[in-house]
């Protein structure tokens, strides 16, 4: 019986910046199909952990494997879709149409002399349709609302047909209704399209029913298989290091 390799396999990871230890002794594995939330206090190292996984930072020590391949040898980056923090905050005058931005997600697959193939066109159209932005195709990205821009950025990440989507607190500058639609979409991608999701969020209560695991990052890592238990006030207070209250809201 052959097992699919884990998406991310992180062993004894340390990261130090200018003498400050940002992350230490991080070890975890994420199998295919999982929906994981990464939570933790500001400055705790959540975004740094994501940047390390994506190769944007180099670890001080430790190893990272992606899809069973050591990160240094990994080339199939199209298998990972990334929606960074504040991605919806776009320069209003940047000359890019919605379709041009979504098409960027296919560039690395097209190669040096590659023109847009039928498969590229299909993947772009599919991502735009999934995000409900097909009718915005020729609009300039800077002329859209925060929620619409967010959907464009996710469509760009999805256009390479990734197996895992990494999303870093994408709701900055986005209205509540769009946030709600966004959580619905992540659930849909995970359950019906089998896309694994790694999601940095402060709003864990809203997605507690959807997620399989919680990674609590505050310099070190704490893993929980039971999201509902983790969002209990006393547990959150213990982890965040100060009295915390879970606020329930009707999403």
């Amino acid at each position, binding site marked *: 019986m052959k097992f699919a390799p884990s998406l991310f396999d992180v062993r004894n990871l340390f990261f130090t910046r200018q003498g400050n230890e940002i992350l230490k002794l991080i070890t975890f594995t994420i199998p295919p199909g999982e929906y994981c939330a990464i939570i933790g206090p500001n400055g705790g190292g959540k975004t740094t952990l994501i940047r390390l996984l*994506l190769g944007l930072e180099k670890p001080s020590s430790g190893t990272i494997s992606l899809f069973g391949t050591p990160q240094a040898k990994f080339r199939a980056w*199209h298998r990972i879709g990334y929606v960074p923090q504040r991605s919806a905050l776009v320069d209003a005058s*940047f*000359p890019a149409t919605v379709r*041009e931005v979504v098409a*960027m997600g296919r*560039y690395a697959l*097209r190669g040096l002399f590659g023109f847009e193939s039928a498969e590229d066109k299909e993947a772009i159209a599919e991502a735009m349709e999934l995000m409900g932005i097909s009718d915005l195709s020729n609009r300039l990205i800077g002329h859209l609302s925060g929620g619409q821009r967010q959907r464009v950025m996710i469509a760009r990440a999805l256009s*390479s047909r990734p197996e895992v989507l990494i999303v870093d607190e994408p709701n900055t500058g986005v209205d509540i209704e769009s946030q709600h639609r966004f959580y619905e979409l992540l659930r849909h991608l995970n359950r019906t399209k089998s896309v694994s999701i790694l999601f940095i969020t402060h709003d864990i209560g809203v997605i507690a029913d959807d997620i399989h695991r919680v990674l609590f990052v505050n310099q070190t890592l704490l893993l929980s298989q039971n999201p509902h238990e983790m969002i209990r006030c006393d547990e959150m207070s213990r982890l965040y290091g100060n009295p915390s209250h879970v606020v329930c809201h009707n999403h």
Partner: protein
Amino acid sequence: MIEMLSYPFMERAFIAGLMIAVLASLSGSFIVLRRYSLLSETLAHVSLVGVSVGLLVGLSPLWMAVATSLAAAWLIEYLRSSRGLYSDSILAIFLSGSLALAIVIISLSGSFNASLFSYLFGSILSVSNDDLITMGIFGSLSMALLILFFKELYFIAFDEEVARTSGLRVTLLNFMLVSIIAVIIALSIRIVGTLLIGALMVIPPVAAIRFGMGFFKTTLLSMAIALISVVIGLSLSFFFSLPSGAAIVLCLLGIFILALVLN
């Protein structure tokens, strides 16, 4: 117009000017969108060091300009990407430093003459057949690279970090772009001059962006603006004995103001 083109020196000036218009506006689009416009101005000043060294030691000022601006472009990109220095600060240091160095070399050589004046502000009389051949070779190479990596450079201009995570070789492409810009600037100094080439790179894309189109159409419009300005500027230079660089830049400014008014 036909009479103007009957002069061989004007024919050469037009061929060189049109070539530079396309190259400068195309490469300029990427640096404008990355808010790195001062790079063209800085490399133009650095190329003046090459010109002054060339005039001092009797080597080709054009080749010396290519060599110095290429070396400076690589050093600037290295300092920006690997040493974590602020881009605008590095550019300011290189801009004033290279101008100071050029002035010292010029003073030592006592060569502040008509020849240097033409390198500073451009001259339609100064383009030789050899210059055209050099421009043709390096211009074609630069153009081929810009077209081949057009989509990758566009992605990096829009979002460098996500471009990197998508698997593009961003560091290599950044070095390639600054190298192309360095070469284009060095090639342009005969026609536009070191002090004015920055405008030919920056004004066309900035004016084109005002029309609110996608990137491909914006780039085409930017090239059209540069081509029109070069044709009108060179013609004004011929009929009114003006420095060609200044005439071209004034035309660009006119179009930019028109774009502002229309949008």
